[in-house]
């Protein structure tokens, strides 16, 4: 799949009573639709999100339905997008802004780190920033170094931000609604390679659509997936895999291909996170592999391994393994040598089982 293919439309949903089969794009759109309808304070904006409906089509049709005062295009200025979102939040709105690619949030760093994240603290709750910042992240579409990054650790390092990353349509909708309803600023990272199907890292195989997957059954109405709650994505006894986003499916493929009975914890909320779920699983399996697509050094995996060391040290039977992107910019042509695919995760699983 290339950028050109990833940026085209998605398949139609097959409705059933109160639940529809949705792609991740449709589930996110449904969350925005539900919240725009329920809460007159919700506004949606960003580059190309208005008339066109976003380069990944997540906001398609919403401007026509809710009007240009609720869903609109923004100038290409990420600092401006986040800055006005903070201002709107100060007024009392619940802005949901899209940063077209997570790779483009950097011009907004000051508004995110110094402003949105600290408004509550510095005003002792006088002002808050109930802002949700949606950002497609991750690789797998030949996007090169500026359409592939996974900057989650840059956000988890900032006190006051919540960082969330769903990996399937059901969680995407429930977490987006929870994020919009949350009074804290939420960084909502959307693994773009999962938009149209549960990609497991086998890039040379045919694309698997969401329609086959149980987590593509999404309630049509309002529901939340609570923040700070992990999902046991796959139960297992041998080893715990702590992961999130695209790597959940990569890890699942690695577990089935190695035959290792891995328990996969999809963190969903990266920070603040569901420490109990992590500790429970690692104490049960006594082994742990941490997997993420982002670069390794000072990556979120470092935080996870530190937490396990602090909370599970005496239960561990093997060193914790980390599988991550290499510490280089995301290359374009060598994408699949960079991407930590099922083979690399599988090797780490075997190492974790050795001792």
């Amino acid at each position, binding site marked *: 799949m290339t950028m*050109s293919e990833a940026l085209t439309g998605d398949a139609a949903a097959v409705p059933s009573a109160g639940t529809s089969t949705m792609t991740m794009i449709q589930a996110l759109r449904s969350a925005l639709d539900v919240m725009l309808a329920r809460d007159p304070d919700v506004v949606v904006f960003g580059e190309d999100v208005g008339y*066109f409906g976003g380069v990944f089509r997540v906001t398609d049709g919403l401007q026509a339905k809710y009007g240009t*005062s609720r869903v609109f295009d923004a*100038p290409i200025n990420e600092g401006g997008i986040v800055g006005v979102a903070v201002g709107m939040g100060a007024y009392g709105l619940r802005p949901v802004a899209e940063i077209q690619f997570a790779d*483009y949030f950097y*011009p907004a760093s000051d508004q995110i780190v110094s402003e949105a994240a600290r408004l509550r603290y510095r005003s002792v709750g006088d002002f808050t920033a109930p802002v949700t910042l949606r950002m497609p992240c991750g690789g797998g579409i030949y996007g*090169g170094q500026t359409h592939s990054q996974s900057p989650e650790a840059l956000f988890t390092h900032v006190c006051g931000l919540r960082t969330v990353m769903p990996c399937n349509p059901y969680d995407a909708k429930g977490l987006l609604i929870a994020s919009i309803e949350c009074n804290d600023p939420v960084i909502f990272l959307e693994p773009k390679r999962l938009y149209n199907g549960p990609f497991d890292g086998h890039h040379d195989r045919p694309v698997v659509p969401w329609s086959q997957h149980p987590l593509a059954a999404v309630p049509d109405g309002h529901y939340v997936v609570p923040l700070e709650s992990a999902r046991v994505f796959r139960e297992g006894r041998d080893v715990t895999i702590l992961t999130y986003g695209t790597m959940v499916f990569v890890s699942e493929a690695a577990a089935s291909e190695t035959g290792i009975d891995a328990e996969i914890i999809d963190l969903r909320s990266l920070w603040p996170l569901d420490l109990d779920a992590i500790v429970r699983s690692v104490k049960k399996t006594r082994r742990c592999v941490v997997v993420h697509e982002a670069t390794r050094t000072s990556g979120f995996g470092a935080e996870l391994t530190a937490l396990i060391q602090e909370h599970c040290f005496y239960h561990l039977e093997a060193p914790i393994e980390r599988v991550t992107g290499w510490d280089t910019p995301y*290359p*374009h042509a*060598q994408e699949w040598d960079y991407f930590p695919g099922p083979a690399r995760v599988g090797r780490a699983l075997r190492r974790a089982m050795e001792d």
Partner: protein
Amino acid sequence: MTEQRRSAAPAGREPLHLHVPEPSGRPGHHTDFSYLQTSPAGAVPRPPIDVSPADTGDLARALVRVLADDGRALGPWNPQLEPGRLRQGLAAMLKTRAFDARMLVAQRQKKTSFYMQSLGEEAIGTGQAFALEPGDMCFPTYRQQSLLLARDDISMVEMMCQLFSNQRDPMKGRQLPVMYSYKRAGFFTISGNLATQFIQAVGWAMASAIKRDTRIASGWIGDGATAEADFHTALTFAHVYRAPVILNVVNNQWAISTFQAIAGGEATTFAGRGVGSGIASLRVDGNDFLAVYAASHWAAERARSNLGPTLIEWVTYRAGAHSTSDDPSKYRPKDDWANFPLGDPIARLEAHLIAIGEWSEARHDALRKEIEAQVAAAQKEAETFGTLVDGHIPDPASMFEDVYETMPAHLVAQRAQLLSGR
């Protein structure tokens, strides 16, 4: 709180409403191009290069044009180029157009993952390339391939190897197609992050002044990206230090799906931003090769004479899709370019050369075919080194190089891990 906000407006006052600019044309109905203030060819005065920036206000609102509809070159901005030079300009534009057309097909054949064409904007890079001197440095966006293709010293084969991410790709497969880097041709490495290069152009120009050099810089940005803070920052630094830089704004009316009014172009001009910052500014017909050359030359002379920066807004039209990932029929009329008042830059220069008796349709066709054959031959040669689809990509282990000047231990270890399959 909601209740409080919803309270009725005081008697006699309408409640506020949000203005969101809209283009006049959308799929199914035509654009009303009267929003685009134009001036007749030859009508706009050409001030001396030491004009006070404050006195360029009118030039930033009008439209500098040389080529009239009947093909004649009119007025004080006529650069009086030799016919031979004009034919070179025409050939360079044809080359860019043929190159783009072929690479679009190559993308559909998956030989490259991605492409961005410059259809309709060929005159701008070409005209400016002709006005710059060896050693000057451009800080382009992804849509200035004409700066490279206007030169004889950059081979199309090499550019195509970059697009095909093959083993001869000078960017070693690291960069998205079209993200060229050619220091030797005065072409700064292209960033995927919009607008960053605009400030860097100013910094390069400041360096040239610091070193008492004679070279100048040329920064490039699209209408959409002028909304970034980096654009305004660049104007401030350029003005403060009177940097020897040409600040080019390519206003092709669109930024992916958003109309230039969303970038702040409604009822004002992008050139006007320059005047407000104390920078001499021009608004120029970007589809008029003669006007492009003349304005670029004027700005370059100012820069080289220690008179400081010039901002030029090039009015043009993005005739094709934003990129191969885009479908403009979803957000603008299909026939928009045909109705665009400034026409096609190649057809206009061709008409001028014919009008002055220096060209003919037959020669034009012959030249176009010759150039298309050159582009096809270049592609054939480039493909012998592989394309993305056949897997002849640069060595994966090379991705660990150039992160630092010398490879630190952790990258040596990671490279070893990649190679050993551990």
